[in-house]
């Protein structure tokens, strides 16, 4: 079985903040990390490989430094990595991103399963997995929390919905987007770290992928970001003081004033 895992390098959002004076985004000193959901996707692939004959290839579309993210997951046991990098990819929306990733999967040819994270913590759209599966004309399941292999041609997956759990049988090749319940990411091992450090990571651009410049990046995008701004600061903040009885009374009155249900 050939499993492809799609990962994205993202800024560590816990260090992203808005400067209270200038109201601008401060990302100085913010580290790049592998999107946390993609580490779950990597773990899901490794778990399948633990008990099945499988090869795992990880791909990312990003600037040259995104190869660091590829080495990170190689050090956890992924077999191969490919970087998709080209100036022409800049400004991709989810459609253009999916077009690029789908082209890479087509070029590899023999893919049985594609794993993505539920969503990337920067763009936050959760659209790339479904759009890429549609472009490849393969079935998909989102928000997957458990994967089983009932027979050689199918996967049995449990997916988490707002209402509960659904169990689906889905034929290969297919694409799954996963959530944290698939398993806590394993740590890098010394052996794999050495291998990752030495690995030659091929880089594919539009020429290798057989894509035209108009199909990718901003030119190939359908949506356009027209404005990026800081969320309005809440100026209705109140700190309630006094003894606990006074605090309880004050809070009760404020909530009553705000017509909170149940009060």
């Amino acid at each position, binding site marked *: 079985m050939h499993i492809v895992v799609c990962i994205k390098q993202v800024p560590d959002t816990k260090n992203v903040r808005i400067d209270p004076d200038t109201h601008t985004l401060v990302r100085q000193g913010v580290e790049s990390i592998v999107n946390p959901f993609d580490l779950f996707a990597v773990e899901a692939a490794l778990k399948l490989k633990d008990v099945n004959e499988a090869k795992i290839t990880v791909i990312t579309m990003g600037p040259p430094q995104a190869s660091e993210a590829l080495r990170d997951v190689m050090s956890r046991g992924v077999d191969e990595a490919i970087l998709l990098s080209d100036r022409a990819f800049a400004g991709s929306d989810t459609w253009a991103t999916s077009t690029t990733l789908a082209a890479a999967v087509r070029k590899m040819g023999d893919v049985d399963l594609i794993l993505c994270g539920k969503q990337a913590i920067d763009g936050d759209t959760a659209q790339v997995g479904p759009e890429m599966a549609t472009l490849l004309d393969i079935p998909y399941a989102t*928000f997957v929390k458990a994967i089983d292999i009932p027979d050689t041609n199918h996967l049995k997956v449990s997916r988490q919905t707002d209402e509960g759990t659904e169990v689906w049988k889905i034929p290969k090749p297919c694409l799954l987007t996963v959530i944290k319940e698939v398993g806590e990411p394993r740590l890098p091992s010394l052996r794999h770290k050495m291998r990752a450090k030495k690995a030659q990571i091929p880089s594919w651009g539009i020429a290798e992928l057989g894509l035209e410049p108009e199909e990718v990046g901003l030119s190939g995008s*359908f949506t356009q970001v027209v404005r990026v701004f800081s969320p309005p600061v809440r100026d209705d903040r109140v700190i309630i003081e006094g003894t606990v009885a006074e605090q309880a009374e004050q809070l009760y009155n404020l909530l009553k004033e705000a017509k909170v*249900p149940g009060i």
Partner: protein
Amino acid sequence: MKAIVDHQKCTACGVCVDVCPFEAITLQETILEISDECTLCGMCVDTCEFGALSMPEVGSGPDVDLSAHRGIWVFAEWREGTVHKVSHELISAGRKLADKKGTDLSAVLLGHNLDPDLFQELIAHGADVVYAVDHPELAHFRDETYSQALAELARRKKPEILLAGATSMGRSFVPRVAALLRTGLTADCTELDMSDEGLLLQTRPAFGGNVMATIVCPHRRPQMATVRPKVMKTEKVPGHEGRVETVDLPESTFQSRVEVLEVLLETDQTAKLTEADVIVSGGRGLRKGENFTLIEEVAKLFKGAVGASRGAVEEGWMPPSHQVGQTGRTVAPNLYVAVGLAGAIQHVVGMQGSKIIVAVNKDPQAPIFDIATYGVVADLFEFVPALVKKIKQEQGLA
């Protein structure tokens, strides 16, 4: 391609230099330069108070006859015989957009054995037309059947705008609809407006809620967006009239490679976090699992649900289905009460859309106070019983 500088307007103030996450902007003496590191993220554009920075435009692609598309559509999410609240919220929001634009508003209902009362409810909220597709293969949700049916309808009727709830269903199958129709999709919007040129202005949080972005889809139709539940207000339109059109689609529309083996609804009502009007969450500050009875008691008084931080879930005090945050559920109730939890960014991104946030923490420096509407600095083991007592008194229970 990279961000465009209007050197006439640029004052070389340097604000954008510090803002660029990719260190792509530099000041060479007094000339602003943008390097190949630029990823067109757009962060710099809004920070320039002189309007000197802009983004290049998306490609227009092959000609699409934009004028052939008319009307606003709302996907009405049907599950287990009822229509999701967010769909009524979107009909109400769609009504305003339709009136502003002088066009029709339609609702699309997909399912099986659809109850005609549901059609009337959609009309009462402002829909002019309800398109209904009733088929046994739509009894259970699957991405393929639902997206094929919605895309086929859209191909036939050509709406200019298509909105759906950003629920687990909407966020799963609507990207496939957009891809089948070869159009753009904006995720998880919290604000919609119409530009003077008639483009849908779709505003959404990104970077875990740290920034807001306004997005348009200039050259493709329909303009599509998923919209976060509970941000738009429902409003019935008194005396509004509309018609129902039942549509038959070819059998091929209902084919799917996926087989649904089981649908297990969460019976534990308290776990229905995303629907709750009030959520009371506890964190590691509760010290042990038994103490969650305190949280449960408050939740019960508010007729709300119980949430938890990952800290509390990791301790085994609450099952993971109660976790709020980046790796748990995203919620936006009317009232969110955070008790004995620090307010780590990964928690905050999952609840900062709540209307009123109450924080109870003994540490005045706890980050949860940065986003709290009402902050209570107190020991939870003293404050929570006092609050319970007060509410019970008022409700005549004590």
